[in-house]
């Protein structure tokens, strides 16, 4: 199908928007890694969980939510028309 040619380079504002979108897409990967991190902490003899671990997980959770909340208003304005899979 014929598509209108998309510009190769963008002005500053749309460029920032794309990068914001990239950041949002990377966020889950970062979050996943952070959530897996404690698996590497444990010594083999450890058999119970500590309150530190609990705090860590909820801390990561809060950070993820704050990041998403920071990204969301910027991304909302991005019209779906340019939401091509790039």
């Amino acid at each position, binding site marked *: 199908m014929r598509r209108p040619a998309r510009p190769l380079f963008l002005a500053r504002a749309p460029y920032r928007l794309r990068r914001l979108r990239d950041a949002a897409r990377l966020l889950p990967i970062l979050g996943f890694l952070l959530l897996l991190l404690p698996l590497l902490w444990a010594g083999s003899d450890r*058999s119970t969980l500590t309150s530190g671990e609990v705090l860590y997980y909820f801390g990561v959770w809060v950070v993820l939510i704050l990041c998403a909340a920071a990204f969301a208003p910027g991304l909302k304005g991005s019209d779906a028309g340019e939401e091509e899979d790039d």
Partner: protein
Amino acid sequence: MRARKRTTEVPFNLLVAACLLYVIALFAVAFVVESRARVGRLGWLRSPLVYTLSLSIYCTAWTFYGAVGYAARSGLEFLTIYFGPTLVFVGWWWLLRKLVRIGRQYRVTSIADLISSRYGKSNTLGVIVTVIAVVAATPYIALQLQSVVLAFGVFASATPEGLTAPDASQTAFWVAVGLALFTILFGTRNLDVKEQHHGIVTAIAVEAVVKLVALVAVGCFVVWGIAGGLSDIFARIDAADLTAWQVQPGRWTGLILLSAAAVITLPRMFQVMVVETNDEGHLSRASWAFPLYLMVISLFILPIAVVGLEHLPAGSNPDMFVLTLPLAEGQGALAMLAFLGGFSSATSMVIVESIALATMISNHVVIPIWLRLHRTDAEREDLRAVVLNARRLAIAAVLALGYGYYKVSGGSAALAAIGLIAFLGVAQVLPALIGGLFWRGATRTGAILGLVTGFVLWAYCSFLPSFGPGAVLSGAIFDDGLFGLSWLRPQALFGTEGMDPLIHALFWSMTLNTFAFCLGSLLTFPGPVERLQGAAFVNVFQGGVGPQRWAQGQAEPEALLSMAQRILGEEAALALFEKAAREQGKQGFLPDPTPGFLDAVEARLSGAVGAATAHAMISQLVGRATVSVEDLMAVASESAQIMEYSARLEAREAELTRTAGALREANEKLLQLSLQKDAFLSQISHELRTPMTSIRAFSEILTEGALPSEQVTRYGRIIHDEAKRLTRLLDDLLDLSVLENGTVQLNLALTSLHEMLETALTAARQTRPERSFAMIRDLPAETIFLKTDADRLTQVFINLISNARKYCDADAPEIRIAVRQRGARVTVDFIDNGKGIPKEAQSLIFEKFARLSDANRAGGAGLGLAICREIMANLGGSIAYLPGQGGAAFRVTVPLRLDQLAA
């Protein structure tokens, strides 16, 4: 126990009354919203807040009761169930947004409808997804019933006197009946163009608040009422010494991924996330608000579990800590609130899930069968009643299945285990879903293969074994594998014994599912409708795709109208047809069955009965089923033609630009030539006029007579000289024009360069014979034989040497002649030691009538070098001024052997 003595404050009948009141309140909410929706005054009820709250349908009674039990049994692992959705929502809601956009654009009614629609409106796929969803959801619904029953049981055991509680299965039965009634009342009120139930969504949002408040209230009571605040809770967590609380890396990772997949594919999530929304912008708010909800709801799970384990007697069910802790502490009202929270979680899940399942069942199973059975008299009947009744029946059937499962399984299994198995079941849809959204190459066959493979493996590895050895799968199969093949053991496929059973099932079912899906897609060729739908779904953000799905129809508009009436109702159908007719510029209610109109009708119908059924119904009327491969190719070649046409236009434009450029150049050249010609003519006239004037003047004097004879002789000589000059000038001009036209006759012969130079020097000596020049020559180099026109070349040499003699102003003048042979060319340089030719004049000297100064005007008309240039061009060589040699220098280049080239 002392604590248990204090727990008679909540009589059972009060509990029942509270439940009933709560349900009546929900009824009222749903009713008010429905009536507002009917007059189109929804306002804030369609806000992102309500949307986010309705998403909390993810948190069922499994969360409310089960998570505490889960935490008590395996520590932090319960968090994975919320981490998955958090990850999906914080970053990957663009995926959800694509889902929502597709759902809105193509009026998707359920996840089965989406899959069926994407893969060529295949009802087979719709049926497969429906079966998977029903099988996976049944235990889940049973789980909700069980949790309500358990909760009732907690209160019942606490009330020895008063109204005695009915037994567990009776409770479950009545709960199921009540839920079925509520769902039928509000879930099947109308057959909407798009399956939306505003009343139910709002009721669910209310329930979301209730369960959040209840859980947080219990949590606060536990943290600050029982324990001594946060630090005390942390101390207790550190002190709790349970070996089971270890995080298992495999399960941890696997469960995060599993819950991330399930949040997209769960039928109830799909229902609230895609079907019930019409604003994809809500997703951006939900991207952080929904994870926040999840976090808040799981904030107090661990404290409740830890404190419950400490305070309650060993052996009490940890799934019920949320209720038993407040009861044990004598907080009747709080326990009541907690009970309502759990009740909310269970009811909201069951309501939405059964609506979603009922839509699938009626659209993909009941209606197709019904249409097949009633093909003949289908013309007049009102299908809406059929669809609605099918849906009501389906809701009842789903709840009956759930109740049946509860009865059969005996309500024994831990809540969490059933929940995870159901998650894994619906996650099997994920490969077909994601592939369908992003990969145009995904085909129907691939999707069927993947789904069936995943479903079978899930059933064999996870679902059936969950009943325990000997129930469905015999103990022998557990130990020795299917057919006695040890590599087919349900919990150790291909010898993978070391894996946790759930992770084992997750790994094998998802891997082989994806593998079968990809392989099937790679090897098969999709049909035209499939390809069309694939392109439409994958490129949904790039606007309209492809040809109309219907060829210009043979359909009777009247038949179409009566069919649309059967499904949409008379008024809506007439309105749709009238609008279309007006758009076509026609009066009345019967538009032409153009492809576009057929598309619109189909889209409207699929909002009610699903894409596959709508498609089938229209193709019955249109006759020739639908778009063909030829149509697709026609579209492809059409766009190829457009591209080719524009490419041709571009090429033509470029050509025009080039031609215009060439024309402009030619024009400039012509102008220049014209100027040159004018200049030439005026020069010629001037040159001719001067001698003519003197000839005329002297001849006039002569004709007057009476002059001394020596005077006559002198005047006669002047006239003679001037005439000679005139002749020379005319000769030169003639020569030049002959040379310029290329009509000159060349006499080619082998001649020694040395001889030619000798001749030239001798001849040139006549020019200013009074001056003596030192000649510097390289005699050996001059012994070259050239095949050329010797006379003409000599003429050039004479001209150059004469010029040097004429213009060289050095005191001890010298001329250097350097001969060099370079391959097939010979260069002869004539260099004097005068002051040379100024730079700005160098480009002019070869032009006609170019003279450096008027000092030696008598010497010639300024045609010499022009003639030289023309001669050299005729001889296949060139002449150029050689700058930077310390004087005037000219380089003559001649070919060693000139073949006859000039005609």
